[in-house]
């Protein structure tokens, strides 16, 4: 854990957090008579007015089905939908917008790769490697495809620090490995995983890399070509965008080589009972009328983040996290799980003699929203010998004063129990 004292940690002076807070209507309310302190951002972040407006404006003015009508509204909807795809492409630096498939979130992105890429290719005895710290959404789809194909699922262990055991990873990733799937940032502990090392190991073994970026997008500027991963997927709602929106990035050659994931309208060039010709990328993977408003909202999210700058966001969040870690170190009976060298704005903790669920209820009464439970990462909880934690996760709009409110509320928990 960082040992800086609480008073020595200052956020960057030029980051106007109050101005950012003003952009988020949901933050300005009381819960149980106390000002809301929203620290459940790793589960889902609140939405800026610009994103809410973009969705609302789209429905009020431009809505029609996409890629179909010759009429004006259909053209506007198509432009908005494809325009948003191009915004996301530029944001993650994909080579082409055809490499950005709209999905409902990271969960669908991973399932798409598991079923459309992995399933036809995996053979009995092949291996898929994940990590012990994965969210269930990056474990279960691989278990399913392993059951379907006879492939074997293996997991890179996690050290006490919350960091991956790279020595073990080097032994696990070998000539039988076909796929290496890992989170960019652990949702339960906040550990930033060593992307370069993992992708290099996978590449050396001839395996394809699948990165769950759901927790990274709100905190970092992700450049998929610099990362040189094969697939990268994320959810809009964790990066201040709409629920139900998301992107699967894949290298064009890989996506091109894959059969469609689901059949239906929008994904075909022509249909007859003699045979159907599938559409080109990215439409091949987007059967049915898509979540157009979600795509529009995601595009607005990227615009909003671009206007702030992710380097600024990361510096601010890092200062808030360091302050929270310093406060945690000064709190008797509170244990922070893991102390990785690189940690995003997530703090998972337990308290002696108090179940996390009870912590969550008392904190809620103080207006402080945290997540409690296993965080959909039960193998990781088992690794640390715990059933659950309380997790405070910070976003760009959280402040030192809110960290103080969190620890004041933790004091109330201690008083009660």
């Amino acid at each position, binding site marked *: 854990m960082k040992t800086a004292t609480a008073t020595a940690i200052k956020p960057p002076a030029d980051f106007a957090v109050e101005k950012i807070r003003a952009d988020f209507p949901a933050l300005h309310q009381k819960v149980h008579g106390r000002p809301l302190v929203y620290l459940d951002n790793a589960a889902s972040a609140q939405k800026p007015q610009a994103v809410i407006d973009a969705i609302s404006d789209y429905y009020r003015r431009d809505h029609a089905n996409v890629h179909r009508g010759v009429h004006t509204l259909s053209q506007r909807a198509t432009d908005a939908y494809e325009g948003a795809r191009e915004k996301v492409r530029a944001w993650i630096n994909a080579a082409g917008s055809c490499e950005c498939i709209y999905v409902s979130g990271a969960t669908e992105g991973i399932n798409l790769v598991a079923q459309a890429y992995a399933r036809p290719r995996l053979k009995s005895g092949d291996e898929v490697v994940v990590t012990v710290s994965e969210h269930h959404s990056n474990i279960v789809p691989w278990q399913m495809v392993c059951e379907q194909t006879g492939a074997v699922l293996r997991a890179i262990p996690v050290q006490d620090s919350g960091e991956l055991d790279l020595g073990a990873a080097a032994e696990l990733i070998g000539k039988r490995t076909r796929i290496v799937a890992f989170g960019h940032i652990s949702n339960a502990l906040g550990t930033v995983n060593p992307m370069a090392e993992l992708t290099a190991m996978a590449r050396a073994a001839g395996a394809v890399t699948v990165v769950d970026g759901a927790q990274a997008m709100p905190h970092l500027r992700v450049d998929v070509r610099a990362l040189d991963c094969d697939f990268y997927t994320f959810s809009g709602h964790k990066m201040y965008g709409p629920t139900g929106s998301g992107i699967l990035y894949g290298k064009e050659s890989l996506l091109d080589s894959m059969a469609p994931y689901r059949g239906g309208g929008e994904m075909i060039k022509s249909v007859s009972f003699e045979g159907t010709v599938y559409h080109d990328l990215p439409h091949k993977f987007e059967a049915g009328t898509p979540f157009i408003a979600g795509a529009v909202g995601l595009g607005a999210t990227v615009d909003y983040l671009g206007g702030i700058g992710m380097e600024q966001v990361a510096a601010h969040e890092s200062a808030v996290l360091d302050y929270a870690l310093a406060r945690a170190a000064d709190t008797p009976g509170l244990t922070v799980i893991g102390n990785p060298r690189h940690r995003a704005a997530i703090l998972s903790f337990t308290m002696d003699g108090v179940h*996390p669920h*009870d912590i969550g*209820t*008392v904190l809620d*009464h103080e207006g402080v929203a945290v997540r409690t439970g296993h965080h959909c990462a039960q193998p990781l909880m088992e690794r640390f010998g715990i059933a659950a934690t309380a997790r405070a996760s910070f976003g760009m709009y959280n402040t030192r004063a809110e960290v103080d409110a969190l620890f004041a509320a933790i004091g*109330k928990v201690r008083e009660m129990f």
Partner: protein
Amino acid sequence: MCDLRELYQEVIFDHNRNPHNFGKLQNPDRTVRGDNPLCGDQLTLYLHVDADGAIRDIAFDGHGCAISVASASIMTDLVKGASAAEALLWFDKFHALVTGGGDGGGEGMDKLAVLGGVRQYPMRVKCATLPWHTLQAALRGDGATVSTE
């Protein structure tokens, strides 16, 4: 904070700190595990059951929040020596109590009434009912594991 005390009454803290009937039974007739997948809480009930279905002895272990541990502690006190039919009737009344559908009246309900504050916390109802769902499965022979979901 005062309304939070309605949920966390002092009796609940007492049961949480020193749960009654906590541990395993020797050679139980029935063993059933209850899971709350929402939060990862787990408890296992061990029962000695007479030929006529009466609960001769009962114990539990596992891990959970103060509400679920207190509920299991109170429940095991209450149903020890009861017939299966009595126990299931208490579950009905208890369920009504914590979901707001009942007043908690009737024999044995005074002990359960301390959990009545749960009705203000829909997210916590499953914590209070997990031991009871598990007991119901044990008495009906529904299988070795039950879930609140």
